[in-house]
C-alpha cells in the first residue's frame, strides 16, 4: 500500500466579512501519496490556493482535519506548524518571494542553515543551472531565474512535500517551461511529493493525478493518462 504524506478529511474553510460568510473550501477530502505529482486546476476563486495553504499549514481549516505523515496537525500551535514547515515542506510562490537583500546563494543558504540534513547549496543551485549567477541579488535576475532560485531554495532541505502556487503564472512560456523542467527533475530525482496549482490546463500533463476544483469543492480527481515531459509542453 502506498504511503500517504498529507491528507485532508472533510475540511471547510470559511471567511466572515461583516454579515457575509464565504466558504472558500467546502467539505474537501484528499490524500497525497509519497512521490506523487498532483496538479490542481481551477479558475480564480475556486479555492485551490486556500486548499494548498491548508495542506502547507499556512492556514487552518475552519473544520475538518489535516494529517501529515499520519499525524493530526489541525490543532498544532503556530510554533509547531513553523517547525513542521521548516523540516518537511517546501514552497514555490507565483511571485518568487526571494529575500531582496540576500544574493541567490544566500537565499538558498538561509534555508539550508535551518535544515536538519540539507543537500549542498551548490548542488541545489547547479540543479537549477544558476550556480554561475549565485552572487547576484534577486533584482539582478530575470523572473525565470528568480523562480529557479526559489525552487533551489525549496528543495535544498530535501522536503517531503513541495507546494507550488502558480509557479509559472508570472512567466512567459519559454521561461515557464524551464521552471517546470526544474520542478520535474527535482520531483523525479528526490521522489518529492509535489502539489502544483495552476489555472493553465496544459501543465496538467505533467501530473500523476489531476484535481479539478470549482466553488471550493473538488469536481473530479483523474489519473493523467497522457503524461508528458515539461520540455514538450507549450501554451
Amino acid at each position, binding site marked *: 500500500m502506498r504511503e500517504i504524506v498529507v491528507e485532508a478529511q472533510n475540511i471547510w474553510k470559511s471567511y466572515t466579512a461583516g454579515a457575509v460568510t464565504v466558504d472558500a473550501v467546502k467539505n474537501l477530502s484528499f490524500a497525497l501519496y509519497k512521490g506523487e505529482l498532483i496538479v490542481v486546476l481551477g479558475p480564480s476563486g475556486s479555492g485551490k*490556493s486556500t486548499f494548498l*495553504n491548508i495542506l*502547507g499549514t*499556512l*492556514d487552518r481549516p475552519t473544520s475538518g482535519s489535516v494529517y501529515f505523515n499520519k499525524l493530526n496537525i489541525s490543532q498544532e500551535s*503556530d*510554533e509547531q506548524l*513553523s*517547525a*513542521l*514547515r*521548516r*523540516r518537511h*515542506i517546501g*514552497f514555490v*510562490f*507565483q*511571485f*518568487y*518571494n526571494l*529575500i*531582496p*537583500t*540576500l*544574493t541567490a546563494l*544566500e537565499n538558498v*543558504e*538561509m*534555508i539550508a*542553515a*535551518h535544515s536538519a540534513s540539507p543537500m549542498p547549496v551548490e548542488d541545489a543551485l547547479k540543479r537549477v543551472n544558476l550556480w554561475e549567477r549565485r*552572487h*547576484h*541579488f*534577486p*533584482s*539582478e535576475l530575470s523572473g525565470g531565474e528568480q523562480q529557479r532560485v526559489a525552487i533551489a*531554495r525549496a528543495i535544498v532541505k530535501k522536503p517531503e512535500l513541495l507546494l507550488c*502556487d502558480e509557479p509559472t503564472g*508570472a512567466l512567459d512560456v519559454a521561461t515557464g517551461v524551464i521552471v517546470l523542467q526544474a520542478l520535474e527533475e527535482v520531483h523525479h530525482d528526490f521522489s518529492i511529493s509535489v502539489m502544483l496549482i495552476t489555472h493553465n490546463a496544459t501543465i496538467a500533463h505533467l501530473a500523476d493525478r489531476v484535481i479539478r476544483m470549482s466553488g471550493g469543492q473538488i469536481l473530479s480527481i483523474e489519473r493523467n493518462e497522457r503524461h508528458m515531459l515539461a520540455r514538450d509542453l507549450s501554451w
Partner: protein
Amino acid sequence: MVSIYKLLLTKTFRDFTKLLGPSLTVSFVMAAGISCLIMARSNLSSLQTSQRLTYESLNFADALIPLSRLSRERIAGLAVIDGVRQADCRISLSGQVRLSKFEKQISARFHSMPRDGSLNRILLTDGRLPAPDSIHEAVLSDGFARAWGFSSGQQIEVFLQGKLIRLTISGLARSAEYVYQTGSATSIPDDKLFAIWWLQPRLLEQAGNLHSSCNEVLLKTGTERNLLKAESQLAARLQVAGYTQYLPRKRILSHYFLESELQQLRGMTVWIPTVFLAITAFLLNITMGRFLLTQREIIGTLRAFGFSYPLIAGQTILLALMAIFPGIVLGIFGGLWLAQEMFTIYVKFYRFAIVSYEPDWSSVTLSVAFCLFTALLGCLTGLRRILMESPAVSLIAAAPRHTKVSAIDSLPFLRHFSLIARMSIRNIARRPLQSLVTLLGLILSLVLLIFARFEQYAIEQMMQTEYALNQRQSHVLIYAQHLPESALPSVQSSLAGGFSEGSLALPVTVKSAHASRELTLIVRKDNEFLAAGENIPNRPLAKGGLTLSKSVAEALNLHPPAEIQLLTKIKQTKHSEQIVTALSENIMGTIASIPQQDYLRSFHESAAFNRILHKAERQTGINEKSIFLRQPLLTGLIEKEFERKAFEKTMAENIGIFQNFMIAFALLIAMGVLYNNARVQFAEREREFALLRALGFYEAEITLLFWSDFFILSIAAVPPGFYLGRELIDRLMHAIESEVFRIPVNLQPSSYIWAFAMLLVGVFTTAVLIQGNLRRIAFLSVLKARE
C-alpha cells in the same frame, strides 16, 4: 450637494487617525523640546523676578560693614559721603537656640529690628512685630519656625553672648538678606539648624554692651562704582569704630549663593533648550517630509481628478498641523507644569519674601512658532517633491528599493557575518537617508543620556572630593577669633575622644597686576592629617609658596610661578608678596593655601588657629551642647555627615527633575526615530517577513531579523554618540562654570555603559510596541500580492 471642502476635511480627519502613531511619536519629541525651553526660561524668569521684588521691596543693602562699636549718632555722617545714598546701622550678634528635644547645635543670628524705611527690612508672614517696649518679644525667621512647627506666641530659649534668654515669638518673617538661609558655619541651608531673630535693640544692646551704639552699618550705594568711590571716606570715618573691611552685596552669603545659582541657570537656559530645540527641529523636519510621502498616492489621485494645488496644499498642511498639534499642546502645558514644579523646588531653598511665578510667554510663542515653521518647512518640502512628479507617477506606489551588488559586498569582513547581519547591513545601505536619520536620532539620544548621567556623576564626584577626600574630619569647630596654638591642647581635651587638629582659615584678597579676588586662605601645617589634600586628584599642594584655585588663577591671568600680593584684614590690613607655585582644581569655592612657616614669616604672626578639625570616635560622637557650654568662643560646629546628607538631598531634588526630564527626552528621541523607521521598514519588508514565516521561521527569529538593523544602528551610534556627548558636556560645563563653581569633566566608563544600556531600554521598548505588527502579518495575502 455635499461641499468639496467638507469632504476634504472629513478625509483629512480620517487620514489623521491612520497617522496617529507617527504623529504621537513626533509629538512627544516636540513636547519635550518645547517644554524644556518653557521650563528653563519660566523658572529662571520667576527666580529673577522674585529676587528683584524681594530686594526692592525690602530695601536690601548694597554693602554691610561689620564694626566693633559705632555710636548711633554718627550714622548720619555716613549718609553724606559721596556715593552713599542711604546709611543705617544695627546690632548683629551670634548665638544659639536651645531646644530640649534636639541634641544638635542650632546657630542663631540676632538683629536689631529694622525701622520703617531703613535698609534690610523684613516681611512679616505671620503674627506681628514686637511691641516697642517689649524686650523679650522677637520675630523669627519663618523657615526655622516652619521646620520646627513653631508659631506666634510660643517661647524659645536662646543663648545670647553666653546668657540663656527666653524669647516669645511675636511673628514670623522673611528677609532679603536670608533668601538662602544658611549660617556662617555651613554652606548648605538647613532650616532646622539656623535661626534668625529680629528684636527691639534694647536686649541686644545689653547683651553686646552696645548702649546707644551698633556694630553693623548697612549701606545703599546703587552701584558698585559708588561703593568704591565711598570706600576711603568710609574707612577713615569708621576707623575708630573698628573698621577693617566692607562686605559688598556679592559677598553676602545668601546673595552669593543665589547669584551663583542664577548664573548657572542662565547658562543652562541658553544652551540646553537650544540643543533640545535643534534636535526637535531636525526630527520634525525629517518626520514631516516622510509623513507627506504617506500621502503621495492620495495627492496623485487628487491631481488626476483636477484638484487645484492650493486645495491639495491646504489639506496637506492641515494634516501636518493636526499631526503636530498634540505635541504643541503637550509641550506648552508640560513646560508650564514642569516650570512650576521646578520653581516650587527652588523656592524651598531660596526663601524669597515675595514669590512670583511668571510663565515666560515669550518662550511659549517662540517655541510654538519655531515648531510650526519647522513642521511647515518639512511638509512643504515633501509636498514640492511630490508635486514635481507627474500625477501618473504619484498614483503608483513607490517600488521598494532594489539591492544590487555594491561596495559593501566587497568588504572582506562581510562574508564572516551571519546571514541576518548581512541582510541588515545591506538593508541599512539601501536606505541611506532613512538609516542616517535613525542613526542621528540614536546618536542624539546617547549624547543626552551621557549628559544626564554626567550630572549625577558630577554630584557623586563633588561628594567624594568635598566630603571624603578633602574633609576627613567628622566635625569642624569654628571660633570667633584666632586662638594661640598653646590653647589647642585644652580645647582638644574638651572634645573627649577622637583625633583633632587646629587649623587657620582667613579671608584674604589676592591681587595681581590688573585684578583682585577675595577668597579663603588655608594655612597648612607640615604634620596635618585630616586636612591633608594629597589624595585629591588635580590638587597638588606646593611645599613652598602659594597654591591657588585654578579658576582664580585664570581670572587673574596668572601662570605659575607668578608673583602676587596677598592682603589679610584681621584687626588691621597686612600685605605680603607671594609666589604662586601651584594651581589646584576646585569644584566648589575658591581657596588659596600656604605652608604655615611661609605665612608666619610673611605676616609676622605667631602660630594660631580658628578652626578645629575633629574626627570623632564612631561610637561616641561628640556632645555638641556641652562643647558649646564649655567653649564660649565657639561660634559654629559643622557635622560633616549631616552636611553631606543635606547636600545630597538638595542636589537630588534640584538635579533630579532635570535629569529625569533629560532621560525621558533622550528615550523619546530614540523611540521616536526607531518607531517611525520601524513602521516604514515594516511596510516595505512585510513580504520578506511573511515569506520567512511561510518557510518555517519562528516569530522570534523574524523579530531578531527585524530588529537587527536597529541594533546595528545602535552600535554604530556608540562612537559618535560618546564623542559628541563628551564634547557637549565640555562645552556646557565651560559655558556655566564660574570662579566658584567648576566641575571637571571626567567621565567614567560606567557613565558610557549606563547611557548605552538606557538606549537599549528604549530600543527594546519600541520593539515591544511594534511586535504586534509582526505577530499579525497576514502572510497569505502578502505572498499572493505582486511584488
